[in-house]
């Protein structure tokens, strides 16, 4: 709810704003209001298809064939003149996004720290051979467990897939980092807590039947960090999806879809 006395006045203007018919102070006022008022923001959302339709409903004409070549040639000329110094920027931007990705950067950092710590323990354990081989084995295994997600995240064929919450879980979101050769790291947030006897199952949606990538259980806060293996010989996926299923998992999806995202 808003306490803004101008709300009723501004709400009347949302439709005009949606088609780009407001300018200057009127537009500034409504943009400020839209950031604070969920009701008006929702109203705007319902009007955007009208804006699209106004752009789409005009008589359709193909542009002259020569225009394409002209536009591409202009971009090439400009490329030679100005682009080179900035060539690194997209990679920096990509790197920054990777690090800033909600929680994941932190997660990678924690993993590295844990790996370093376990390696220290391992060295200590190896130094004190009389502590027995068992400690060495345990530390080795734990270090290997933590190397798995790092190995996936560093894979040369890593792909990122964003999964969006579906109507049963509109606030849920997830991101999968998938390498066909090394496996899959799934991070998720705001997943609804599991009903008794149920579990989330991740699917590779392919041209044929969906292929299970495994079962995942969120923590009490609805968060999730899971490392899964790539199903053997899985066809090229068109999407990843997460459904709610019986606790033992199912061979084909039966339950409601909680998350879905295109795999390219």
């Amino acid at each position, binding site marked *: 709810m808003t306490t803004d006395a101008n709300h009723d006045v501004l709400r009347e203007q949302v439709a005009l704003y949606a088609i780009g018919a407001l300018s200057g102070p009127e537009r500034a006022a409504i943009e400020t209001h839209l950031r604070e008022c969920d009701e008006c923001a929702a109203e705007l959302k319902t*009007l955007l298809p009208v804006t*699209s339709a106004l752009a789409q409903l005009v008589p359709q004409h193909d542009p002259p064939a020569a225009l394409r070549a002209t536009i591409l040639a202009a971009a090439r000329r400009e490329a030679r003149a100005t682009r080179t110094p900035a060539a690194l920027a997209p990679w920096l931007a990509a790197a920054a996004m990777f690090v800033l990705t909600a929680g994941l950067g932190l997660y990678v950092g924690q993993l590295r720290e844990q790996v370093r710590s376990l390696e220290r323990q391992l060295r200590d354990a190896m130094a004190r051979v009389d502590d027995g081989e068992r400690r060495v084995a345990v530390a080795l295994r734990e270090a290997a467990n933590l190397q798995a997600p790092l190995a996936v995240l560093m894979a040369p064929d890593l792909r990122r897939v964003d999964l969006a919450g579906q109507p049963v879980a509109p606030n849920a979101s997830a991101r999968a980092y998938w390498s066909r050769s090394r496996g899959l790291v799934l991070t998720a947030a705001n997943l609804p807590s599991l009903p008794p006897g149920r579990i989330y199952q991740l699917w590779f949606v392919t041209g044929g039947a969906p292929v299970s990538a495994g079962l995942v259980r969120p923590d009490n806060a609805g968060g999730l960090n899971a490392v899964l293996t790539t199903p053997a010989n899985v066809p090229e996926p068109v999407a990843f999806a997460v459904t709610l299923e019986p606790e033992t998992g199912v061979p084909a999806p039966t339950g409601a879809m909680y998350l*879905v995202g295109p795999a390219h």
Partner: protein
Amino acid sequence: MWFLAVLVKLGDAAAAEADRAAIQRMARGDHDALADLYDRHSRLLYSLALRIVRFEADAEDVLQEVFAQVWRQALRYDTNRGTVIGWLVTLTRSRALDKLRRGRARPQATDGEQRAHEVPDTSPAIDLTLVSAEQAAAVRAALEALPDNQRVPLQLAYYEGLSQSEIAAKLDAPLGTIKTRMRQALLRLREAVAEPVR
């Protein structure tokens, strides 16, 4: 059934993702990505520009300016800010309206002078996605069915870029009345989007 539901959801998402990927490739200097984006959207954008500026040569200029700006700004474009098609449509409309206004104000302006004038990208960062052909047709029919006193102000605002007060002056009607009629018109079109003709 389940698979179909996924595919329908993914249709729009896939198109939007292809656009985002093209922008990211353009940011790395990939000309093929610019060609991809042009091939997907030039017909829509050219038609919109032509509707606004009315002359083919002007519509071609608008498209050149739009794609040049997209190419230059691909590096800075935040693909989380809104959809790429939303960016393209608002950019095309504002460039076309700008050309229309300059044509009105300074019919003698030379090509060089026009190019030197860099239009700021002030379009609201909104999340436009395209509607289906059926929905666009339904809105066209609804627009044509509107009474003149609702349709004309709307067309003057969207396709001619006139301000509310300019429309009020042109149609010799009170400003409040114009605003009310335009809002009514838009709400009617919203109904038409929601229930496309069968």
